[in-house]
């Protein structure tokens, strides 16, 4: 049994503030491991983890895989394009087959929201959500919070803005839930067509004026923007988007303060964010990547590690 209330990490919606603090604290101690010359501990020796990726994501998969290897777990990767799957039946079949091979943990990335919840119905293994459709991406939000904590000392009281395609972003949802729980204020900024209905009920503010938002924010999380999704145009043009919501050097230059910049990647340089902004000293984007490994080590350890005594 692990150290958290729930057996699985399906989303941040069911992780308390106290647990979040534990996860982050543990992640910081694993960060030290990553800075050692031999970056490996025997913590999860003998445990087997399967990375089940139904949607391609090289970054997240490598980050999880590294975390598992640093903890000495045995790792297997399974990736499949969902279009080659015969939908429902084989989702269950795949799950049960993997379960039959006796694994301790399944890290799942899936394009359908709720798929990790669904998986828990068919397997006994611990399930970690590595992103499910537009629902949640809890480890991403945790690594974002860890990076903010590293930069600012604490999350409580921070003003964080999330900018861009909120409607299709699992990163935004997990961030909103996590940041709120840890006492930060969150403002969303982006075109109204990409603002999901009722999101204010999650305890956030919406502001369509980016300059005003930048004025207010200590840190901003910039989301990847795509003009079309499922054949529907949500914004008239990239030019207009950049004009209204692009994080440009010029825009930041007008402020009389520094704003910390995050991006979950992959970035469209020159679209939602200027290249030189992404590479500037205010950007903590590469710290996010490094902290991602530490946060995933923390989660794996807290869910799979053996309780002392």
């Amino acid at each position: 049994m692990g150290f958290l209330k729930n057996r699985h990490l399906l989303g941040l919606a069911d992780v308390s503030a106290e647990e979040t603090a534990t996860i982050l604290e543990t992640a910081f101690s694993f960060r030290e491991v990553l800075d050692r010359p031999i970056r490996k501990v025997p913590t999860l020796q003998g445990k087997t983890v399967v990375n089940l990726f139904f949607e391609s994501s090289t970054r997240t998969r490598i980050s999880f895989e590294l975390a598992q290897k640093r903890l000495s777990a045995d790792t297997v990767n399974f990736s499949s394009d969902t279009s080659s799957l015969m939908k429902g039946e084989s989702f269950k079949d795949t799950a049960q087959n993997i379960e039959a091979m006796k694994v301790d943990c399944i890290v799942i990335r899936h394009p359908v929201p709720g798929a990790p919840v669904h998986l828990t119905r068919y397997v006994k293994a611990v399930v970690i959500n590595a992103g499910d459709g537009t629902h949640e991406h809890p480890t991403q939000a945790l690594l974002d919070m860890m990076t903010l904590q590293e930069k600012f000392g604490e999350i409580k009281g921070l003003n964080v803005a999330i900018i861009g395609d909120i409607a299709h972003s699992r990163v935004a949802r997990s961030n909103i839930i996590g940041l709120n729980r840890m006492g930060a204020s969150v403002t969303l900024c982006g075109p109204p067509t990409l603002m999901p209905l009722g999101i204010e009920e999650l305890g956030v503010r919406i502001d369509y004026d980016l300059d005003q938002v930048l004025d207010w924010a200590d840190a901003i999380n910039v989301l990847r923007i795509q003009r079309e999704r499922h054949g529907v145009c949500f914004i008239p043009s990239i030019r207009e988007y950049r004009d209204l919501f692009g994080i440009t050097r010029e825009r930041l230059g007008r402020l009389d303060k520094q704003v910390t910049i995050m991006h979950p990647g992959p970035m469209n340089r020159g679209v939602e964010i200027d290249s030189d902004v992404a590479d500037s000293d205010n950007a903590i984007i590469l710290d996010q990547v490094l902290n991602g490994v530490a946060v995933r080590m923390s989660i794996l350890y807290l869910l799979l590690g053996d309780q002392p005594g």
Partner: protein
Amino acid sequence: MQSRPLPRLYLIRNANIIDPVREKEFGGEIFLKNGRIVEIGKKVQVEESSGKVEEVDAEGRYVTHGFCDIHAHFREPGREDKETLVSGSRAALGGGFTTVCVMPNTDPPLDTPELIRFIVEKAADLPVNIHPIGAVTRNQDGEELTEMAAMVREGAVAFSDDGIPLKDGGVVRRALEYTTSLGVPIINHSEDPQLKGEGQMNEGVWSTRLGLAGIPGVSESAMVSRDVQLAEFTGGRLHVPHVTTRESAEWIRWAKERQLKVTAEVAPHHLYFTDADLSTYDTNLKVAPPIRSEADRQALIECLRDGTVDCLATDHSPHTVEEKEAPFDWAPCGMIGLESAFGAIWKVLSGASFSLIEMVQKITINPRSLFGFETDLFRKGTPAELVFFDPEKEWTFSREQIQSKSRNSPFLGKGMRGKVLQVIARGMIHDLPPAGSL
């Protein structure tokens, strides 16, 4: 379920009789001869001379008209693995339904007089009355009208492309116009496909939380508003199935105020669940149109009370376990509903202080009158269609009790109030297992 032929002379004594036509509830007796109503009253005259009378004491039981469902999917022909006319009939009896209208979205769809006759002939010997609803358009492709007059002659009681919305307003206009001479309603599954988009559930805070693509309420009400205006323009009869939003109901109210021939139904699941119940990603709660918000649910209850919505209909939609085991986005829409209907509806409506008579009207005479069926089943000489039930019984809907071929019900494990105990229809008596036993 145990079934046996109805004795030639059958006297039911000590029953709590609910007469939805005369709006009366009284203790009394019912005498049946050759499967037909001879007399109903506090005390009935039994003609002893004509033979042996089987008497039954119905102490503590309520009896009323057999229920009527004007919206079910029995999947035959084509998807007999999900449901057949035979298995669907058993499911109907399990829910107290003695008359069921089946939707035409079978494979092939019921879009010719021959296919209507196929259903009528196949249903002739079944234990419940089954009436086919014909497709509005050939192959349900939304373009060319079917041979509606010939289909009515063969037994079609209404027309619908249910499951597929009629998106072309011109076709709806022609269908409403053409059927003015036939006296049957056009039923349009109102969901604007473009507004629905990739939607999987009601659009609102819950779709936002769960990350499931939303279906806005306006995708329904926009089409309802178009259709009721076309009903006014053509003078045709329009029936709006499975209403789910307050705004749709307002358009129906508007139509009724103008005395248009517009009627509407609501499904038990839209009265029982809200979109918050989808938080477990239960694919059995994936239906079209979707389960809406608590505010919509309350509005629907009020519309049923004030008559804006005429009746209840189950939208019984069987799917295989395999199909429903898929991740949410990939699962088909629909749930079975016949067997859970009464217990679910009465739980909701008794909680909203409806009387038992009002509730019974919504599943007996109201739907029957919409489709031109006999409404007074207590009239002398009428074939007996009776249902016996215990309105106070609190029970849990369980898998073992299901008679349908499918099991896709979100009501499994849910609390019900009111249990159907026995059904008399088409010369047979069917005893249902009591709640809790298998």
